[in-house]
């Protein structure tokens, strides 16, 4: 009984409690990122705590946006203890730890486990990746979100796991099933990264994770460190049995690789390993090992990523009409400076309109949010995407700001694009059939879609009176509900394209881009 109690107080047990707590907290934030449950919870807290997000966006924007200052809370323990985040807090790390433990049961042979946890040269790849991403950020393209574990895990939950749950248990996650463009790509990447634990325990954390590389670099300065007493050590290598980071505690500890999981301290039969304040550094390899030429290669890839991406023209003249950004988004180049592809906006969107783009917005815009009006539309009285965006790619706008009401009446509403009719597909325009669903659902007042009554002679010679719809470009806000509700569902007879978006001066449609005198007259007009 007494010994059991002492076991509970062991650091390993404390760590397990922390892991369960932080993993559950992450899942909690994922689940409550829904209009029905989101009551001011900080749904993007893990992203705001992520120092790589704050560091990289500070490089691209020269500012630290709102809650990102919280990442200082993680810098402190890293400078004191090392990469404690990786094994105590990071939900993605905890997932890999758990999967590794599950797979490790098959690797029951002690020797085999020890061999699996020795340091490999491959593990320096993550530093090369980090260098490439930082160099790309310096050039002006934020790509850390591709592999940052918090962004990656949020994105995987949003686009692959939550919809998967809802497919097997209908209406368990969403009232109506959500769909995400290219969800299978993100889903298979998740499966691949989790599955790699079979070959290399904690493959993602040891080999790929740029946040781990960032924290590893910082942890060179840590004050408390794992220390091995060479006089007590009998070279049994048992400390490697459960070493999470593959940080070689059996010889010269690689501090930048150490996850501070404390398994080695407890596995050592000779009590030769301890966690000490300022142990002598000569027994360690303190800094990360990155061969200089590989680092150079990494920075070249970063430069190339930016230059080839920009050179492809999708951020400039050859912009894609389908790149319709969420309301409150900053101008496209600034957007790519800020968006970390965490897809929190996509998770919280109440209509499923927000989608992870694949190559629509070019190489740099992979998995950034765009609107797909076939799947949803932008809800007029909703600004949730901006509320959860941790980096301000989508600004935290108010309803008044979005709709151009109250103090924002002069500026007018935020426009996402403009709707255009395709007369050849429109029922009243070319098929002698009444419709105007588009006008019905148009949410602005006065409606941007109006109709004119015409009486035509049908093919059979009988007259029919119909209403034919038109768009008033000065009133259209590009919300896309007309396209979403159009009965011509494969390719709607009215479609929104990006032209006319207020976030960009270059992409406006009307000369004054806002409320015209004719509109003011219309507002006074009675029906």
């Amino acid at each position, binding site marked *: 009984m007494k010994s059991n109690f002492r076991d509970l107080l062991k650091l390993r047990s404390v760590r397990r409690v922390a892991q369960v707590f932080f993993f559950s907290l992450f899942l909690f934030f994922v689940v409550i990122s*829904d*209009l*029905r449950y989101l009551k001011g919870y900080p749904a993007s807290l893990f992203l705001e705590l992520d120092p790589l997000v704050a560091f990289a966006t500070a490089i691209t924007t020269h500012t630290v946006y709102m809650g990102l200052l919280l990442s200082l809370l993680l810098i402190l323990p890293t400078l004191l203890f090392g990469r404690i985040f990786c094994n105590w807090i990071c939900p993605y790390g905890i997932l890999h730890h758990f999967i590794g433990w599950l797979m490790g049961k098959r690797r029951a042979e002690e020797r085999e486990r020890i061999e699996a946890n020795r340091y490999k040269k491959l593990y320096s790849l993550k530093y090369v990746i980090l260098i490439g991403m930082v160099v790309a950020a310096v050039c002006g393209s934020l790509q850390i979100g591709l592999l940052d574990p918090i962004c990656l895990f949020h994105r995987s939950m949003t686009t692959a796991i939550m919809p998967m749950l809802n497919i097997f248990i*209908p*209406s368990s996650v969403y*009232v*109506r*099933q959500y769909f995400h463009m290219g969800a299978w790509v993100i889903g298979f990447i998740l499966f691949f990264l989790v599955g790699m634990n079979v070959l290399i325990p904690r493959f993602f954390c040891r080999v790929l994770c740029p946040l781990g590389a960032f924290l590893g670099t910082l942890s060179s300065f840590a004050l408390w460190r794992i220390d091995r007493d060479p006089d007590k050590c009998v070279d049994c290598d048992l400390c490697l049995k459960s070493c999470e980071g593959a940080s070689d505690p059996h010889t010269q500890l690689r501090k930048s690789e150490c996850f501070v999981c404390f398994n080695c301290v407890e596995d050592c039969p000779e009590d030769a390993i301890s966690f000490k304040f300022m142990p002598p550094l000569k027994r360690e390899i303190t800094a990360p090992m990155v061969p200089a030429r590989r680092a150079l290669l990494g920075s070249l890839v970063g430069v190339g990523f930016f230059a080839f991406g920009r050179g492809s023209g999708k951020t400039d003249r050859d912009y894609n009409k389908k790149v319709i950004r969420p309301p409150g988004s900053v101008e496209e180049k600034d957007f790519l400076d800020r968006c970390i592809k965490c897809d929190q906006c996509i998770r919280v969107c*109440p*209509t499923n309109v927000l989608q992870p783009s694949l190559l629509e917005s070019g190489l740099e815009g992979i998995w950034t949010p765009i609107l797909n009006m076939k799947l949803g539309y932008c*809800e*007029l*009285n*909703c600004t949730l995407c901006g509320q959860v965006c941790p980096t301000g790619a989508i600004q935290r706008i108010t309803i008044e700001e979005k709709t151009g009401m109250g103090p924002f009446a002069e500026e007018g509403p935020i426009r996402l694009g403009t709707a255009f009719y395709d007369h050849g597909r429109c*029922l009243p325009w070319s098929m002698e*059939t*009444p*419709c*105007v*669903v588009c*006008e*019905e*659902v*148009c*949410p*602005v*007042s*006065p*409606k941007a879609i109006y*109709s004119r009554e015409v009486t035509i002679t049908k093919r059979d010679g009988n007259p029919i009176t119909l*209403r034919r719809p038109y768009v008033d470009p000065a009133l259209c806000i590009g919300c896309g*509900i007309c396209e979403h*509700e*159009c*009965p011509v*569902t494969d390719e709607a007879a009215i479609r929104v394209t990006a032209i006319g978006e207020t976030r960009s001066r270059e992409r406006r449609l009307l000369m004054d881009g806002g409320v015209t005198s004719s509109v003011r007259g219309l507002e006074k007009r*009675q*029906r």
Partner: protein
Amino acid sequence: MSANPDPSETQHPVQEAENRISRREFMVRAGATGALLAGAAAAGRALWKPDHFVPGFQAEKGLQLANYAPEISKVLPSMAIAHGQDHDSTVRAAIGALGGMSRFIKRGDVVMIKPNVAFDRPAALAATTHPEALRAVAKLVIEAGAAKVFIADNPINSPAGCFLKSGLRQVANDLNLELLYPETNSFSPLQLEGEVLKHWTFFHEPFKKATKVIGVAPCKDHNLCHASMTMKNWYGLLGGRRNQFHQHIHSIVSDFALMMKPTLVVLDGMNVLMSNGPTGGRLSDVKHMGTVVAGTDMVAVDSYGYSHLLERDLAELTYIHKAHDRKLGNKNWKDTLYKEVQA
């Protein structure tokens, strides 16, 4: 086999014995193969469809909706018009004039109340059923002894946002009403002999248990069919490709009077959406009319709403005339047994 066979003596016969299988083993292995073959053949035969068919032309079946209408009374009015200042007293006055809620709801009834929450709008814009109208009706239903009250709608905008921002979710929480979202499994096909509406996916979940149905509709302008009132409110019970309804909107709305025989309908004309319907969007689209109409004949109620609340010419409201001509109600509300009261 003996423990130590002498190789020179036994090699040949032993090898032969080892190569030969026993009768038992032969039976088991041949039997397994045969059983698999027979099983596959039987399954194939059972699942075989020898005739070709054209997809989408199979006979359709669907559920029939019950008749929830109250018994016809020769004494009590079938329609009541109440004028007042607030929802609670005006709704009470209207229902009271009909003979009180106890005429419609008996102790133990399970009541489905259908508001119109089509859009994600605040109540003041009058594009959705006002939360106070719902509260007043639901309170009367609970006072009459209802065992359970459901609130359900299949909005055009996202369901969670519509119920939250219209204020109806708050009412459901306050009065302990069960709010049903239009979930994936909430729908079943409905069968009807309508003019256009024959077979359509229907929000069936609340009707599995409901014994009474009350519609609580706002009075609104509509861009295509001129007005959305108590008949058009039932649009929100249908699912699927509803956007096709606009192609035959007047036939469809009159079909709703055939589809649904409600216990009671309440038309909330306290604040009427006069223009830019059915979505509205500005307070200037809304006019205060201070009226609630309740009744058992939707056609009569909507006729009054169109001519006296939206203040328009009833001659242009095609669906009312269709419904009247199909004997689904009486558009000449003055000919019905009605009562006009002040709250």
